[in-house]
């Protein structure tokens, strides 16, 4: 049987490679993926801004923009601060800035960070707008602490403790009874790290008549006295390290970062990042900075976020890796022509009778064809994507579009996944060809079944719920394998199909497409055994 199957594979391969039109079409599929991808990334950014996004320790693009009141501290120690308020500035009127709704992920908290460079390793405990106290580190990790937004009467007490390269976060309602929220090992944390208070805010959701949009928001955090203890205590002779004991006024407010140690017990104000990143923005006339509240602590104002870059509106016109793979649709159509041809050409020419006579175990025939086509499509898709992704990324960057970097493993998944996507859809097209025995309806069913649900779901013509449903159950679910940016519950954006987010995880989506292909192939096997050629 094994040798029979081998002979069958060999015969199918001979049939495939000796049709010049098919060889040309397979080559065309490869070129189409590249060419369409290049055209898609050829436009020049009309609003060029940043061309590169910071990259975090995991290799992913990150936003790392915040207002930071900090000092360099060596060795182990503990920082304890009560957060007395988290409010937002949303509009700039003639009377100055006016308060407004706070973004759900606005942050005011304390952080230990390797340095002031964007993308450096960190761990933070922070109060947020609507999600209580959070423990976050290295841009993608998040855990929940106490609920509630801090106020002067109900402050959120935050504490960070460093021991070697391990940082632990705590929260408390009263500054006496502490709960550990999380611990992180940060191998990249140098012996001397920047420690301090920060405030930042991504844009907030705003419902407009035509749907949900984003509106700028700038967060203001009010902090009580910051107390350093353990090995961090009493640097430069300050008593107990409490900022509250130092006198002398204010850092810069409205004018950007303070320039250096300014008599506030060694604390310095800085804005990390030149702007508020892709997901945040300052209002005109409202800049980041901080104010000393005498003995009472600090008020820190900032916009931006400390989190991985996500897609949709929060990407602010940047591109994703999979944008370079828009040609997959063209490659898919071309490969569907070859795949259905492998099935229907035999029926057309009567070759099928001979083929079936030569292989008594006729149920194996669809399997042999499928294996061969899948291997070919996998090769073509992977090769095309392996070239299109780096080329399209470089091409986009050259035209003023920042491309959100992804970890190597994700890029590998996207490239290999494109091959698997084309392989599964080729098998689906083949099976439809064997079932329908006519090329045109088979190609139409395969291409339509894959691309139409995608177009419907991403066009905005359907409500989000219906779109997501389409991308769960139709073969178009398979395109999820190309989604490169993560869906992070702790980072705000519109996670909809229209902004490139699939309802299923990448591999689950591919599994749905593969299931369609498998079921269709099984039906073809059953049918070819039952019916006459």
């Amino acid at each position, binding site marked *: 049987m094994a040798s029979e199957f081998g002979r069958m594979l060999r015969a199918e391969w001979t049939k495939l490679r000796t049709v010049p*039109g098919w060889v040309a*079409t397979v080559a065309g599929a490869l070129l*189409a993926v590249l060419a*369409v991808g290049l*055209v*898609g*990334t*050829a*436009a*020049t*950014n*009309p609003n060029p801004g940043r061309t590169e996004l910071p990259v975090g320790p995991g290799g992913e693009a990150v936003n790392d923009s915040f207002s930071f009141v900090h000092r360099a501290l060596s060795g182990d120690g503990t920082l304890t601060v009560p957060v007395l308020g988290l409010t937002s500035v949303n509009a700039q009127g003639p009377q100055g800035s006016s308060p407004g709704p706070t973004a759900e992920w606005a942050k005011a908290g304390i952080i230990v960070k390797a340095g002031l460079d964007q993308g450096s390793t960190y761990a933070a405990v922070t109060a947020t707008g609507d999600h209580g106290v959070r423990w976050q580190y290295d841009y993608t990790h998040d855990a929940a602490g106490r609920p509630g937004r801090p106020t002067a009467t109900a402050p959120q007490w935050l504490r960070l403790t460093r021991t070697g390269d391990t940082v632990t976060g705590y929260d408390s309602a009263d500054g006496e009874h502490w709960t550990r929220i999380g611990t992180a090992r940060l191998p990249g944390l140098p012996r001397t790290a920047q420690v301090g208070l920060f405030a930042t805010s991504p844009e907030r959701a705003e419902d407009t*008549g*035509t749907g949900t949009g984003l509106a700028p928001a700038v967060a203001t955090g009010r902090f009580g006295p910051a107390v350093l203890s353990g090995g961090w205590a009493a640097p430069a002779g300050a008593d107990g390290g409490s900022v509250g004991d130092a006198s002398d006024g204010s850092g810069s407010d409205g004018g950007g970062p303070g320039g250096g140690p300014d008599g506030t017990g060694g604390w310095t104000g800085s804005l990390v990042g030149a702007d508020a990143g892709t997901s945040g923005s300052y209002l005109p006339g409202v800049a980041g900075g901080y104010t000393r509240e005498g003995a009472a602590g600090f008020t820190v104002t900032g916009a931006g976020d400390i989190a991985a870059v996500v897609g949709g509106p929060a990407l602010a*016109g940047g*591109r994703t890796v999979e*944008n370079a793979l*828009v*040609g997959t*649709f*063209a490659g898919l*159509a*071309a490969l*569907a*022509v070859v795949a*259905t*041809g492998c099935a*229907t050409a035999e029926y*057309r020419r009567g070759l099928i009778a001979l083929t079936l006579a030569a292989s008594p175990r006729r149920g194996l025939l669809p399997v042999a064809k499928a294996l061969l086509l899948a291997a070919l499509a996998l090769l073509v898709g992977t090769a095309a994507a392996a070239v299109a992704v780096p080329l399209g990324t470089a091409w986009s960057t050259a035209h003023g*579009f920042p491309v959100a970097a992804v970890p190597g493993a994700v890029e590998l998944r996207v490239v290999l996944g494109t091959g698997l996507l084309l392989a599964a859809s080729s098998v689906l097209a083949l099976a439809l060809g064997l079932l329908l025995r*006519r*090329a*045109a*309806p088979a*190609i*139409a069913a395969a*291409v*339509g079944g894959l*691309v*139409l649900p*995608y*177009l*419907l779901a*991403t*066009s905005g*013509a*359907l*409500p989000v*719920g*219906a779109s997501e449903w389409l991308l769960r159950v139709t073969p178009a679910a398979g395109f999820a394998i190309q989604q490169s940016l993560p869906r992070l519950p702790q980072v705000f954006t519109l996670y909809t199909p229209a902004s490139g987010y699939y309802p299923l995880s990448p591999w689950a989506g591919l599994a749905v497409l593969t299931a369609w292909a498998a079921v269709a192939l099984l039906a073809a096997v059953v049918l070819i055994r039952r019916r006459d050629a």
Partner: protein
Amino acid sequence: MHPPATPPARTPRRAARLALAAEWTKFRTDATHARLLLGLVLLTVAVGAATAATTTCPDPGCGVDAPRTALTGVLVGQVAAVVLGVLTAGSEYHTGMIRTTLAAVPSRSAVLAAKALVLSGAVLVAGAVAVAGSLFAARLLLPGNGLTPANGHPALSLADGPTLRAAVGSVLYLLLVALLGLGAVTATRSSAAATGAVLGLLFVLPALARVVADPDWQRHLQQVAPMPAGLAVQATLDTARLPIGPWAGLGVLALWAAAALALGRAVLHARDA
């Protein structure tokens, strides 16, 4: 004894009528064609009804284009129209029937014209049924989802100018993509290649327009790509802000179809069957 019947003189007019009759006979005797026409109607109405059933309008000024929502199914129904256009000539290339056809009707242009006419008649009828069915379904479904007169959405009616334009335009859209298929298969002489090429042309350009972030490019792509331009005819809201006007957009699709048919005619004349 009967005298041998003299065949009537083959005037060009009669030849054209015979060619048309022959094409009609071939068209109506292939069961696949009837199935595709039925598929066109069912897919269009079903997808349109499903879209209407899920579209809601919670408050006045929700910006829902009711006729366009009702006719969303045309997006899916067009696939059946394309396949029908392709098969109208494509099947003959597979079976070799095309040689008989061309021997019987020596004027190749007449063959193509007859095929185009028969195809047009069939798609116009099926398209009209599909569009009417979609509008009827939406008329029943939309008021339940808040698209009520109180919210600024009177019941769908063909007496309304823009709605009539969307309806007639959608039928013509289906016709034009079918003709695009016919032109493509005559040019390529392969059903598979023609189907792949036409669907690629229809679907890849809109996907491309989504990625291209330059608004000028996006606009131009939506002006020249057959599907987005042609479907502009369904818009009834804010037509001044569309990349291309409703009838102008349908005109772009008509140009694509005409170009494909002209290419097909040239190939039909230039090559052996």
